[in-house]
């Protein structure tokens, strides 16, 4: 394991401190926690937006704290859901009276911990609502589907709706709509190593790739020989189109890097993805290429497609100003 760290058990704490130290004008770390909060939150009568999950997915989630997206992000240990007390601190810190909306990825740990935090908040009369994102089509049982890079677009829609003054119910409706209409699938070439574990979480042979892998290295659909980028783009796109009928619709696209994949390769992927979508008469309204939801130093990428209606387009166009998402 070659890493630029100090104590493997202190990586999340030191990361949070280093991030708060980098951007002191815009962000702050809640004392005694690994919660990163927007300086301007809480805003009175704006719904507060909280997201979070295990660390190791940077820029998720603190990279999305800022105008038009999140008010706070809760960082758990690496690949481990944050605990209810920390989530509860985030909720309290961003509640401006209009309630707090939580964006949760569909992992048992995340769901359990966020639910417990919501119970704590409700006991203190804070209104809480949530969306559970499950965009990963690699899992065929829909109820078990994992939340991956599509979560970023759910952040965007919820954040924009809240910024526009939407109520907790309206924020939830927008987030639910995004979550229902977003699909993603990933693939990996090499694994990553959780600092405290010290060894890679899975292995792939030198000529192998895995299609459908999860962002913590959870098993995918198939292991097979590495294919050219164009074939990978075709396979990932096919998987999304087989699961959801995007034909004729306007879409947002994310070609997301998992950590070690050079940006060059993501653009090579995008080149083919755009061609395939055009062939399928799917209109691309907005494309994002880059690292949005990573898995430490895993090599690989994921593809996300979201169907947009007029409301979602307008929410996508609403200004956002965060470390990892601007425009």
């Amino acid at each position, binding site marked *: 394991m070659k890493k630029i760290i100090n104590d493997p058990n202190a990586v999340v704490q030191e990361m949070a401190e280093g991030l708060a130290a980098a951007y002191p004008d815009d962000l702050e770390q809640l004392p005694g926690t690994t919660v990163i909060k927007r300086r301007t939150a809480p805003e009175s009568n704006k719904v507060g937006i909280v997201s979070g999950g295990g660390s190791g997915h940077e820029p998720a989630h603190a990279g999305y704290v800022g105008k038009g997206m999140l008010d706070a992000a809760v960082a758990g240990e690496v690949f481990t859901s944050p605990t209810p007390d920390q989530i509860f601190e985030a909720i309290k810190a961003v509640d401006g009276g209009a309630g707090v909306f939580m964006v949760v990825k569909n992992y048992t740990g995340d769901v*359990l*911990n966020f639910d417990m935090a919501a119970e704590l908040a409700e006991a203190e009369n804070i209104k809480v609502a949530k969306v559970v994102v499950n965009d990963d089509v690699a899992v065929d049982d829909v109820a078990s589907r994992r939340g991956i890079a599509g979560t970023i677009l759910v952040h965007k829609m919820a954040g924009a709706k809240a910024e526009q003054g939407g109520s907790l119910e309206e924020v939830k409706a927008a987030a639910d709509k995004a979550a229902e209409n977003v699909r993603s699938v990933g693939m990996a070439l090499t694994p990553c190593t959780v600092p405290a574990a010290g060894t890679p979480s899975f292995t792939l042979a030198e000529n192998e790739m895995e299609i459908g892998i999860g962002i913590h290295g959870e098993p995918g659909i198939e292991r097979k020989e590495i294919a050219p980028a164009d074939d990978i783009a075709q396979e990932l796109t096919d998987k999304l189109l087989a699961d959801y009928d995007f034909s004729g619709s306007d879409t947002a696209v994310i070609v997301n890097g998992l950590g070690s994949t050079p940006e060059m390769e993501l653009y090579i992927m995008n080149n083919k993805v755009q061609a395939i979508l055009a062939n399928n008469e799917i209109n691309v309204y907005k494309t994002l290429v880059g690292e949005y939801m990573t898995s430490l130093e895993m090599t690989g990428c994921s593809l996300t497609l979201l169907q947009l209606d007029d409301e979602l387009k307008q929410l996508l166009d609403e200004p956002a100003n965060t470390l990892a998402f601007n425009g």
Partner: protein
Amino acid sequence: MALTVQNIVDWIVKANEKIQANKDYLTALDQAIGDGDHGINMSRGFQETAEKIRGETYTSGADVLQDTAKTLMSKVGGASGPLFGTAFLKLSAAIKGIDPVDYDTFTGAIEDAVNGIKQRGKAAEGDKTLVDVWSKMADLFNCESDFRADRIAEEAKSAMEQTKSMMATKGRAAYFKDGSIGHIDPGSASSLYIFEALSEVIEGGT
């Protein structure tokens, strides 16, 4: 016999020792059918819990278990944090005001803990989760009429081993589908250490 406050303190301290000693094994189990953090999660949570408990003076077993529950809940994270947290919270509630804890009270407490875990995790027996160990423990306590150190250790071990042949339908291991068969459930292994610690406390007990 009945469990004194000191017995309960010793239980948690011993459970921590076993979890620390088996941290890498638990992580290895979770690397096979999970995301490889279970040993890290449990070790972090129980370390903090043991420290907390060693630093306090307790006059009731319920307080020990409530501090255990709260510390686990705020330090473990992942799926197992809220689940073990819930288990100890239920245990604490069920023994509240009763010291030392007699057999029947403890039997009821284990039953409450099992129900709490099942409700929180929406899991049942056979789902290849820690429910499979805790539930077998509740059965055992119901069948026996006094604390049996040997039976607790045996039954917990056998319950853990039975998870090997199950197919996971809850949590991360469910993604492995058939591939989860043949591997021990990490949360069940942690549960084994908790009950082995209990067994040893009973064995050396008052």
